[in-house]
């Protein structure tokens, strides 16, 4: 998709780009702030074991370009990494201890620590403790039987969630023998999103501050309070007799006001402070004041910023994300620049200088994003002024009105090393171009488009719980998973709602009229769906929306299942997760599971 959009010139323009359809409203925010293993906050790289010193780390991850017209914005990398470390360790971070870099865990070079790998390690008993924080892996992850078995091998698990779920209660789930499971499970009740204050960041990178509505019910707490309290206790324990206490003991952890978690303190920490008096371009910024934007961040330890991308979101002018301005920008394309705040520096459309020609004039004169309006003298631009969105760098356009090229301009793709969009580049495990491979499990014995059957770099796992069956007569039908509008994610927040359960009460499988006839299955009949990994009972929905199709001269039947169910609710305990069937196989780059194509059988009960 990214390649197609680039070739179409759909980058940086109004209505262009690729819109990621996320499963949660705050996926952007959580990944910005380090949800994934391979990046630290602000897309900084997780340190590798081979990055032995801060200098080596910064050297490794700071790109350089010899093109004077390339902004190569990541040349600022050390400013952001050091500011982040100052934010983590506060006054404890200094030049002598590499700002605490040595206290941070490093990942082994070449190793992967994704979701699949975590549960694989748990299954192999190398991970012994687990926080399931706002998640329900016993239903949400592919190959859920493996996950459930892995949970049984832990010493302890802490389940932080709104309600008890299939994860917290895995030990009394289907097929489990509670007496034989040693895992100690702690439930920490969290309150719902509307019961706490804080921000979310949507897929358009708008950071939106939200006030608390009703107070949390019962003993439930905002997860900020939970993690703050946990952190305080853990620090206490480490200070007493920790094996290697520095990383924990030295952590800056002052985010409480009157004994409770203060989301404003965290938001300010994320934005960042001047931690000593700093003079930049003749202006002095006092110690303890908030940094106006990431252009002011320093690599010498004089500034902090928990996430450089968010620097400018909470400044001395206030909490930018809490703004609710209703005015659109001058270009009237729906940017609403004073509603909430957008990273970076409230730029609503990144790479927006790709929407203008070399002279700064928009390709699209109607729905333009930025427009260069500097003064002109004798065919040359003599002052800099962009209107519309915050430009992606305020440099002069590449060309003057008379067509002469400027040497003080920058290419538009400022986050790329050389300033240009790239159709392909290094860094993809299966690059440079996308290729068609058959899924790990498929109904045909050959790939009709190229000689390589399956992706040789795909992630597959090798425990006995990772069974696969391709072209296997026991599993002759293609299975796929999807969502319904009545339930959300693993259904924890919807399977407890009677109005929603009225509409979608049971796990179901959709099959074609042809397959129903072939198998002698009546519409509405309960059947078992089986794969090499598990079995799920389903009500049959016979539909015209599924049709058999021809593949390599074979008639292939496909069936579809939603993924929202679990045995914990409804109280019959007879509905369960589609992920009991799906394979633990992931794409080579991100480990996105292959839950859209796998092989199953439909078995009459």
């Amino acid at each position: 998709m990214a390649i197609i959009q680039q070739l179409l010139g759909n980058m940086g323009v109004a209505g262009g780009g690729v819109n990621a359809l996320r499963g949660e409203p705050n996926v952007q925010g959580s990944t910005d702030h380090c949800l994934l293993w391979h990046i630290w906050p602000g897309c900084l790289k997780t340190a590798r074991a081979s990055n032995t010193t801060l200098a080596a780390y910064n050297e490794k991850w700071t790109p350089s370009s010899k093109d004077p017209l390339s902004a190569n914005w990541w040349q600022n990398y050390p400013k952001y990494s050091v500011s982040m470390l100052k934010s983590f360790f506060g006054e404890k971070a200094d030049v002598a201890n590499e700002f605490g870099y040595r206290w941070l865990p490093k990942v082994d070079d070449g190793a992967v620590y994704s979701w699949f790998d975590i549960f694989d390690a748990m299954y192999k008993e190398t991970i012994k403790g687990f926080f399931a924080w706002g998640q329900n892996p016993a239903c949400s992850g592919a190959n859920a039987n493996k996950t459930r078995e892995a949970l049984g091998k832990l010493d302890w698990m802490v389940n932080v969630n709104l309600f008890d779920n299939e994860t917290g209660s895995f030990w009394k789930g289907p097929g489990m023998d509670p007496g034989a499971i040693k895992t100690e499970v702690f439930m920490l009740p969290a309150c719902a999103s509307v019961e706490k204050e804080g921000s979310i960041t949507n897929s358009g990178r708008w950071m939106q501050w939200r006030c608390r509505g009703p107070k949390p019910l019962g003993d439930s707490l905002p997860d900020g309070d939970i993690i703050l309290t946990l952190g305080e206790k853990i620090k206490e324990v480490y200070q007493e007799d920790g094996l290697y206490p520095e990383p924990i003991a030295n952590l800056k952890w002052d985010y409480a006001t009157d004994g409770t978690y203060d989301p404003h303190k965290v938001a300010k920490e994320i934005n960042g402070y001047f931690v000593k008096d700093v003079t930049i371009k003749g202006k002095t910024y006092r110690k303890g004041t908030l940094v106006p934007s990431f252009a002011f961040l320093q690599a010498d330890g004089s500034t902090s910023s928990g996430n450089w991308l968010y620097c400018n979101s909470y400044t001395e002018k206030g909490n930018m994300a809490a703004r609710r301005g209703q005015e659109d920008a001058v270009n009237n394309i729906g940017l609403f620049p004073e509603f909430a705040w957008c990273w970076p520096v409230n730029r609503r459309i990144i790479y927006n200088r790709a929407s203008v020609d070399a002279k700064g004039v928009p390709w699209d004169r109607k729905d333009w994003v930025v427009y260069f309006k500097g003064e002109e003298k004798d065919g040359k631009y003599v002052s800099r002024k962009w209107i519309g969105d915050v430009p992606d760098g305020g440099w002069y356009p590449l060309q003057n009105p008379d067509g002469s090229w400027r040497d003080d301009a920058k290419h538009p793709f400022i986050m790329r090393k050389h300033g240009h969009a790239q159709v392909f580049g290094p860094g993809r495990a299966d690059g440079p171009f996308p290729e068609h491979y058959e899924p790990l499990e498929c109904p045909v014995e050959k790939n009709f488009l190229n000689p390589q059957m399956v992706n040789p770099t795909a992630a597959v796992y090798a425990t006995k719980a990772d069974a696969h069956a391709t072209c296997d007569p026991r599993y002759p039908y293609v299975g796929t998973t999807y969502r319904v509008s009545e339930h959300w994610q693993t259904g924890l927040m919807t399977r407890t709602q009677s109005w929603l359960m009225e509409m979608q009460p049971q796990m179901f499988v959709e099959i074609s009229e042809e397959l129903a006839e072939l198998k002698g299955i009546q519409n509405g009949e309960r059947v078992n769906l089986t794969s090499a990994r598990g079995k799920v009972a389903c009500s049959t929905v016979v539909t015209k929306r599924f049709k058999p199709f021809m593949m390599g001269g074979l008639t292939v039947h496909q069936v579809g299942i939603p993924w929202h169910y679990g045995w914990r609710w409804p109280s019959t305990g007879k509905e369960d997760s589609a992920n009991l069937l799906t394979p633990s196989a992931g794409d080579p780059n991100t480990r996105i599971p292959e839950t859209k194509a796998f092989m199953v059988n439909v078995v009459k009960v």
Partner: protein
Amino acid sequence: MSNAFFIDTTRCTGCRGCQVACKQWHDLPAEKTENRGTLENPPDLSFSTYKLVRMRETETDGKLKWLFFPEQCRHCIEPPCLETAQDESAIFKDDKTGAVIFTANTKNLFADEIIESCPYNIPRKAADGTLAKCDMCNGRVTNGLLPACVKTCPTGTMNFGDRDQMVSLAQQRLAQVSKRHNSAQLVDADDVNVIYLVSEAPALYYEFVMASAGSHGLSRHMALRKMASPFWRALRQLA
């Protein structure tokens, strides 16, 4: 001038937000259901279900269509139920909004007769014979709010406003939709305050999309008129 709904089924995605919003606003209990081999649930309108999205799959010229019909009371301009009841304390029409309202006093009516009188098969009775159906969210509407189903609709399927505005919106959409769908039509637009735009033959969506004469063997238009006529009323009273 009364209010009216314009329901543009060509925009409906079957999300059923309207169905839940209706239950939520009226504080109606969920029914105990099971998957019966369709995504449509609960199986029918009931004393505690005023709004139900009907779902039908049909193939015409080898093309699959998944048709959604958000079913509800049509708030007839001359409501046969009201004429049949002849009891303003049980069934009345709010002349300001056009809402046809059933009260708790419907308990005193011959419930089956009222149900039979409806050309769209809408009213449902409780165990004690009290009747219920969509009330146009009259309490919301008289306080300047949209009906709950309209408020929640994310696709533009559910519309509500002055009747003349809705009729004009309906005609405008019909003109657009007709360019691509030969069978597009507004259903019974002159007789009801809930005007549906369908793009296929009405019978493909659900049995009671158009006014029917029930068991009386009359044409649908005749039925609407007959139900409301003094003669019919007299006949019913005799019965």
